């Protein structure tokens, strides 16, 4: 059987978006070190329920690090101390017996707290709806091999497309900026040959929608350090370049 940890937790509790929140102190004893961080919260919740206290609400689903639903601040770090790891894939063996762990929701104006550790990230969907797609209605497009995509290009697109939309980048950013998320979607679509027709329209629309919700980027790089998929900061540079070009190209047909 696995070793057990005794932990002191400070967990943020908040009834709703407009309620006052406060920390709940929990002595979490006998936590198996093989448990994941969310399984540790499951154990805490089962004990709260036994004491007739409502369980802590937190977002989670696949628990494989791919759906992007989970994510909390752990001792001030988005997704906690392990690099390139979403909260659900963080395991308790990364902590020591007797540790104090402070658990808070993502903190950003664009991500209002819904309850306890769960936040509203719909602003991300609005950015994608602004242009994060290639317009090809279902039908019979050309054969998939008719457009060649060099391996390096496909690999770069995939590096960007690996984003899981968890929001850790925003939570980690001192400005609550969403440049890494937005540039990852733009990087995916803008490097591919299929994405060229709408490139400039897409870039301008997505960047400006992003700015309706989020703060501005000042190149701290905290987003990259927090990202469970290690999305590169280079995509932000590509996005900025494309945005400048887009502002000119979108002015008139002649400039294309």
């Amino acid at each position: 059987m696995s070793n057990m940890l005794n932990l002191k937790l400070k967990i943020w509790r908040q009834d709703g978006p407009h309620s006052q929140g406060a920390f709940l102190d929990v002595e979490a004893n006998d936590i198996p070190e093989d448990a994941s961080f969310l399984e540790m919260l499951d154990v805490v919740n089962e004990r709260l329920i036994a004491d007739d206290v409502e369980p802590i609400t937190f977002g989670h689903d696949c628990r494989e690090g791919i759906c992007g639903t989970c994510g909390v601040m752990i001792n001030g770090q988005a997704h906690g101390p392990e690099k390139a790891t979403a909260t659900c894939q963080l395991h308790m063996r990364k902590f020591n017996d007797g540790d104090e762990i402070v658990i808070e929701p993502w903190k950003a104006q664009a991500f209002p707290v819904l309850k306890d550790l769960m936040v509203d990230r719909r602003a991300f969907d609005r950015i994608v709806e602004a242009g994060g797609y290639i317009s090809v209605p279902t039908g019979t497009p050309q054969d998939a091999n008719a457009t060649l995509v060099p391996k390096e290009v496909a690999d770069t697109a995939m590096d960007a497309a690996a984003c899981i939309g968890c929001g850790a980048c925003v939570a980690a950013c001192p400005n609550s900026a969403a440049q890494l998320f937005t540039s990852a979607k733009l990087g995916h679509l803008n490097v591919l040959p299929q994405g060229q027709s709408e490139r400039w329209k897409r870039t301008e629309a997505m960047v400006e929608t992003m700015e309706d919700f989020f703060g501005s980027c000042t190149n701290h790089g905290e987003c990259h350090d927090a990202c469970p998929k290690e999305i590169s900061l280079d995509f932000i540079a590509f996005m900025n370049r494309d945005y400048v070009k887009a502002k000119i190209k979108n002015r008139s047909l002649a400039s294309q």
Partner: protein
Amino acid sequence: MVTLDAKIPDGPIAEKWDNHKFSVKLVNPANKRKFEVIVVGTGLAGASAAASLAELGYNVKVFTFHDSPRRAHSIAAQGGINAAKNYRNDGDSVHRLFYDTVKGGDYRSREANVHRLAQVSVNIIDQCAAQGVPFAREYGGLLANRSFGGAQVSRTFYARGQTGQQLLLGAYQALAAQIAAGKVTLYNRSDVLDIVTKDGEACGIITRDMLSGEVHAHSGHAVVLATGGYGNVYYLSTNAMASNVTAAWRAHRKGALFANPCYTQIHPTCIPASDEFQSKLTLMSESLRNDGRIWVPSGMDDARAAAEIPEDERYYYLEEKYPSFGNLVPRDVASRNAKTVVDEGRGVGPLKNGVYLDFAAAIERDGVEAVKERYGNLFDMYERITGEDPYQRPMRIYPATHYTMGGLWVDYNLMTTVPGLYALGEANFSDHGANRLGASALMQGLADGYFVLPYTIGDYLAPKLGDTPVPTDDPVFGNALSTIAEKNRQWTDKRGTHGVEHYHRELGKIVWEYCGMARNEAGLQKALSEIPALRDEFRKNVKVLGSGEGINTMLEKVNRVDDFMEFAELKVRDALHRRESCGGHFREESQTPEGEALRDDENFAYVGAWEWKGEDNEPTLHKEDLEFETVQLTQRSYK
């Protein structure tokens, strides 16, 4: 009286779909905007259907319990998607993919549906590539392929180990474009709690807004369920935590027949559970079996570390029993054999609940770097979860519930036995028979959503031109709303002894023990008495805190577990009645002398579709006989 009419079109197998597309009724482009279609679920099937219907001009309302459509569990599929492109020049064809799928399903699927699936598979790849799905490429820029799950041809397309994620993002992006265009209205964080019918036809749904707690009625000309499978009836599975059977089950209670609920795929390569608090199991890609050797100690209760067990005291059971396929036998065979050796007392790991998957030979043969190149991300994932380094010591694996082949019964048009109610993707039963081949789930979800439903739904809608949807103030909605609101109120009054999780875990133990990898008459009978007893105890003694207002995760879960409690009984009943082994359904009484699944084509070559008869009555079985005109039925053999 229910009659099962599969509506399989006439003509030779290869012409059925084309004939059908010509014979179905069409809705004029200008008239499509006069129809409202409700789509439940935003995984591959739901998102692709919603986007495609909206592109055609229909008004679509799409519902998900997630915060964003992109989070549906299709996102977690790793391996790839099959298509009969024959890009490798290795002899693949639509007919071969069709044949492999029928055979792989152990001859318990409908030929016509499977052939259509193979036909449209090629369109899926074209569509996804055009959307910008970053499939793996060769250096020359062509699409890369690999062989997957023991297939004899390389027909699997993939995007690293994240194919499901990339295909879902493609469908999600297509959906986002339609949301922006105003053709799709998205209702996120909405739990569907009932399907509403009027005069026998589907006319809408009841949802609970998971933020406010309010229940709402939504009406439409047709309702499409793309709500996934029922794997979480086992509690521990590779499904996401919130995956559930609720929408499908409540449709079943409203008259939709449920087909083949005993068919469940158990995936052989998952990480074994480490303790009682384990919340889910994690799949390790099947590709690991290409290089890993599976073994257990030959002696019972051997507590030595793997490295201390000499070669002649290791039992490479798959290599010994199946010399030609070895470690690459199909999923069901690999899973059952792992269970056998663990049950014999040869299991490894602290809980003796796993078998070794050993890469030492591959590392010695090809070098660490080559192995890292192939499986590096999987090895990292394994180490993150278990704290063990698979380069130094063998992985421990054990089978886990992964996919469910059964589902709502649908005809060739994907319509359930309730007119106007459709089921897509894993939620229906139609294409995989008793066992699904690797890289075929993504194919089927997208086939249904992109290329089947958009054609077939017109056949139902066309005659309804001019009809307005049933208004939500109609008594059928009022009654449904008050029933659901009352049910939720009753749940939140429960202040019993145990939380919901406890009962779900207990249910899972029963279903896994008696209706898991191997089943027998006595065990199934036992489950059939234990499940209703647990259900009664659950309904009496469950504890649900908080109120129906606002976010209440316990209330969400209690509804889901309640439906699993009812569904589990039907699943066991189906397994009990099917006194043959086929694919993922292994009845110990029906096996070959070598211990392989033994079908009984004489008596069981049919789809078992169950009709709900009320809480106090046994369900009625209806049979759709399976006729095989093209494929010869044979005994599968992997010796």
